């Protein structure tokens, strides 16, 4: 038995995941410590999900709860007393609580999409521009400076947007609502652009020099190399940057609470109207709610929806990156 094991070890290279038998005990201890840390992280994710689901599930499986909050009323329009026509209403406090989550989902989608549309091109363009201008020495301080911008607390950005940006945008664009989704998105874009920039920049600088050198050797100009060689090669990284930016935009709370106006209106295509996002709703309402009440369950269900969205986004990002990487390998 031992011989067989020995010869197998001799043929196959030792797995990097496992310390070898003769390794000093410190290595083993370190290995166990790392494994413990990793499992704590994974356990945290699983437990958070379990907790959120435990609080949200009564909404689906508890019969008395069904009478209070019919499942259909969460997503379907309904004509409540006092309304002229059937509509989607989020009004969780009052005589008849109304929990329609459609305005909130549309609000989150509206603000996050706008923020990425505004912020991501700036970030990607900055990363390409930095490569194109060949600012190798300047990059050493430009990059940390921009990363510093990404680490500004969102409350600070929110306060700036509330105090300065909102007024400037209202007067320059002639907006009806001073606090609106567009202003919130611009403030969010300020947070997202540096994130997209720094990831795209890493991806661009990881492009193998053989590729660019070969292109230069064939007589390509720098901007041709940038657009036709560097960007396609860095595309997986840039795609990851975009998805991370979108995730950040969906999850951001403080800026949205301060600047978006928080009105649960149903105008997904009008960026100048207000919007109430899922995160803002959870942040402002969860503290007030009686535990295990219908409102509590609905807020946790919103959390679960948010969780699912992020999970889906990550999966899509992984798929895109895998596909692009494969395509790139096939060509080179």
């Amino acid at each position, binding site marked *: 038995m031992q011989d067989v094991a020995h010869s197998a070890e001799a043929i196959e290279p030792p797995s990097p995941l496992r310390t070898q038998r003769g390794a000093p005990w410190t290595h083993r201890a370190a290995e166990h410590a790392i494994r413990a840390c990793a499992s704590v992280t994974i356990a945290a994710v699983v437990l958070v999900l379990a907790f959120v689901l435990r609080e949200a599930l009564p909404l689906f499986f508890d019969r008395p709860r069904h009478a209070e909050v019919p499942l259909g009323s969460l997503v379907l329009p309904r004509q409540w007393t006092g309304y002229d026509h059937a509509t989607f209403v989020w009004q969780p406090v009052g005589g008849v609580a109304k929990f329609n989550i459609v305005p909130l989902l549309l609000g989150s989608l509206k603000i996050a999409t706008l923020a990425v549309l505004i912020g991501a091109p700036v970030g990607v363009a900055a990363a390409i521009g930095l490569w194109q201008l060949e600012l190798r020495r300047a990059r050493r301080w430009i990059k940390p400076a921009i990363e510093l911008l990404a680490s500004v607390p969102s409350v600070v950005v929110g306060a700036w947007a509330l105090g300065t940006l909102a007024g400037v945008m209202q007067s320059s664009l002639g907006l009806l609502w001073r606090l609106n989704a567009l202003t919130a998105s611009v403030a969010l874009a300020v947070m997202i652009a540096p994130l997209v920039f720094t990831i795209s920049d890493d991806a661009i600088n990881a492009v193998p020099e053989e590729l660019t050198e070969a292109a230069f050797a064939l007589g390509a100009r720098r901007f041709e190399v940038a657009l036709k060689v560097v960007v396609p090669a860095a595309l997986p990284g840039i795609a990851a940057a975009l998805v991370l930016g979108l995730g950040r935009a969906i999850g951001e709370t403080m800026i949205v609470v301060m600047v978006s106006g928080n009105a649960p209106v149903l105008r997904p295509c009008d960026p100048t109207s207000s919007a109430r996002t899922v995160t803002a709703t959870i942040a402002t309402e969860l*503290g007030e709610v009686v535990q295990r009440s219908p409102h509590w369950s609905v807020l946790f269900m919103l959390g679960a929806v948010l969780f699912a969205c992020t999970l889906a986004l990550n999966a899509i990002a992984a798929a895109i990156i895998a596909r692009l990487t494969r395509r790139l390998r096939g060509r080179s």
Partner: protein
Amino acid sequence: MLFPRRAALTVAALAACSGRYPGSRSRRDGARASLLVRGSDTMVLLARRWAEAFAANNRCDVEVAGGGSGTGIAALLNGTADLAMSSRRMHERERRALEAQGRASSEHVVATDAVAVYAASGLTIAALSLAQLAAIYRGRATRWTPIDGRDERVIPYGRESSSGTYAFFKERVLDSLDFAAEVQSLPGTASVVEAVACDPRSLGYAGLASHIGVQRVPLSADGPAALAPTKANILSGAYPLSRPLYLYLAARPSAQALAFVRWVLTAEGQAIVEREGFCPLAERT
């Protein structure tokens, strides 16, 4: 180098997540007891002044946290506060939930406040009737034309649904009907006042606050007489949106909690009410 700091952070984060507020349930460790008061944002500053004065004369620290009246009552329900401050009466549902836990609470009116309607200063607004106000916040009326002749849209601001001011306004002005979806909700009295000051087309309701850059619109209920939220009008009860402010005690309150409420109702406590811009109780009767 990094590790101890990270460990400290983790411990702090875990402590923060453990759900037990350091001051929750009055306790007597060592010499000083402590109380945790949570609830209405309208009452936070007032309660802080109370807490400071009370702590100076008693061997008891009082911690005050805001979040809205609903938050305070929920905290009472969840057992994470000794006292809830609320700018609205406890709902029947909340009362029943408390009783179901065998923790019926006691209610104490501690001051009088009013909800004011704010507009940007510089406008000439003679008065608003409660019916007009309801139409605006229900989304039935959207123009300034009938109010002061300007052909502009009204931008209505309000408070978050966790706020007692929100619940009070909904009940008293909207007759418990829903706010229009367009009504923007802001996280505090000061943010409403500031937002209104920034936009002459806007209208906002909030608790009484310092009013720089804004004016308080006189309101009329049924008759033609429009009253501004002045102290005299609020005290006489003539101002249509005046309201009592409450403190709720958890069942089986600690001696400190009882002492605190009793002290708040003394002349000393009520003097602080007056200094903070609310109306003290004794004068109302």
